[in-house]
Structures are given as C-alpha cells and as structure tokens.
C-alpha cells in the first residue's frame, strides 16, 4: 500500500488520533455494520476464530464487531438472542468459538440465551460472554453461576476483549 499522503499530512494535535488525518486506502474497506450470515462462505478459513456477537443495538454491534475484527476474529453479528439460537441450532454459523451477548435485550435476554446454550448438548462447550451497561453484582454472579465465561461492562473497550480472548484461545 503506497501512501503519497504521508509526507503531506500535518501532524495531528494531541487529542486527535491519526484516524482523522487523510489516508489513502488501497485495500477495499470492510464495513463496520452487520455482515449478513452466509451459510457457506467461500473464503472461510477453518483455523480462524469465529465469534457470534448478539446485541439489539446497531451502534453496539458495530463497535463490538470492530473490536473483535481488530483482534483478528471472524465475526457474525445478530440482533436478537432468538435469532442467535436459530442460527446455532440450524448449523448456519458453524465453528463458533465464542458467543458474546448483551444482557438486556427485548424478547429473550442474554441470560436466557446463556442458559439455553449451556443446556444444549450440542452448544454447551461454547464459551459465552455477557455484556451489560449496568454494574449489578447479583446479575454478574448469576451469569457466572450459570456458566458465563466472563462479564464485561459496557462500553466495551479493546483491552477488555484482548484480555478475554487470551484466555479462550
């Protein structure tokens, strides 16, 4: 990738990251927004870790997906626990190495999703991580008791995820 911009770009002010300086982009950009689930992905790399991220918020889905992709995970995002279970049970998301889910969602909650996963002989080995914007000790311990791998407070940061993933790998 050549960047004829590098010499010309002014150095950013301290509060600003290089992200807001001009960039020349060579490779095609990857969308931060949801990726549709494709049952048979032609470019699927068998050894790559695959995370299923569940959140009803489009903003949070975009953020968690980017954080995970920056850590070299393949990510599939869904907007509900029901949809997540559907995909898992129908085998439409093969080789999921981790599920990361919001706690509070309309319809089925992340906690209910956790329980269903742990009750399923097919799915119970998949580590499940719960995310929540609320720091409720009862909630956290209930999730951990139910078999959650970890509990992350939102907003989630890259450092939270890398700490997590180093344990799951």
């Amino acid at each position, binding site marked *: 990738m050549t960047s004829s911009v590098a010499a*010309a*770009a002014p150095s950013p002010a301290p509060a600003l990251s290089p992200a*807001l*300086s001009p960039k*020349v982009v060579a490779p095609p950009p990857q969308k931060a927004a949801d990726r549709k689930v494709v049952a048979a992905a032609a470019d699927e790399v068998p050894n790559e870790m695959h995370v299923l991220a569940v959140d009803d918020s*489009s903003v949070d889905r975009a953020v968690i997906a980017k954080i995970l992709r920056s850590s070299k995970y393949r990510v599939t995002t869904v907007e509900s626990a029901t949809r997540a279970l559907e995909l898992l049970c129908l085998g439409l998301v093969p080789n999921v190495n981790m599920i990361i889910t919001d706690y509070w969602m309309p319809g089925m909650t992340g906690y209910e999703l956790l329980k269903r996963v742990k009750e399923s002989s097919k799915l119970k080995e998949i580590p499940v991580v719960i995310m929540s914007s609320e720091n409720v000790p009862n909630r956290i311990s209930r999730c951990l008791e139910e078999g959650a791998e970890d509990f992350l407070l939102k*907003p989630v940061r890259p450092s939270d995820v890398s700490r997590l993933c180093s344990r799951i790998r």
Partner: protein
Amino acid sequence: MAAALTSQLHALVNNMFATGLLDDQFQQLQMLQDFSAPDFVSEVVTLFCDDGERIIGELARELDKPNVDFDRVDSFAHQLKGSSASVGAQKVKNTCIQFREFCQQRSRDGCLKTLDLVRTEFYDLRNKFQAMLQLEQQIQACYPKH
C-alpha cells in the same frame, strides 16, 4: 487547503472533548479505525445519529400518551444511554441517566423537561458530528486516491 481544513477539524473535535460533549470512548473508536475499516468512525457516528433520532421520537410519543408507561419510557432512555456511552457521547449519556431517574420517580414533568434537554444536546452533537464528517470528506477529497 488541506492544512486549513485539518486545523478546523482538529479544533472542532478538540472542542467537543474540552466541553465534555465527547469522552474517552470516542478516542477508543478513533484508535480502532484502520486501513481495513477506514470509515469505521463515520459509520458508528451515523448509526448513533439515526438511532438517537428514532429513540427521541419514541420518547416523545410515549410521554404524549394520557397514561404514560414509565417502564417503556425508561427502556427507551436506557437504549439511548447505551448507544451514547458506546460512541462516547458523554453529555447525552449523562442526561439519559437523569432521565431514568425521573422514570423511576414516575414524574411526567421531570421526564418532559429532560426530554427537551436531551433533544437539544443530541441535535447539537449531531450537528457537530455532521460538520466533522463533512470536514473529513473535504480533506480526503484533497488527496487523489490510487
């Protein structure tokens, strides 16, 4: 030309941090942007703006009803609080926290006043985000793509 625009952009964003409109979470998002996702920040910001507009509409609708369902209002305020927090929209997030307190108190008046405040703050932020994205585009237009 690019230098002047870049200074403008820096001044705008620095001001947003300095006035408490944005917090550290926004910096986290800026740092996540890279060559594989060069539009990440603008995409998340756009999602936030669309989502925020939708939720504010819902809040207004709910509070307009003769019998206000405060649990529903609270759930919308919670959603907006969540997406504000994720994008680093500190001021809007804090107002949402206030909002939820009025929901707990079942205070229609309190909720309405706070809705006004959140609406003003949200639109102010949205305008600044739009200015920021526009400046970025103008800067990028100064440099020919390969």
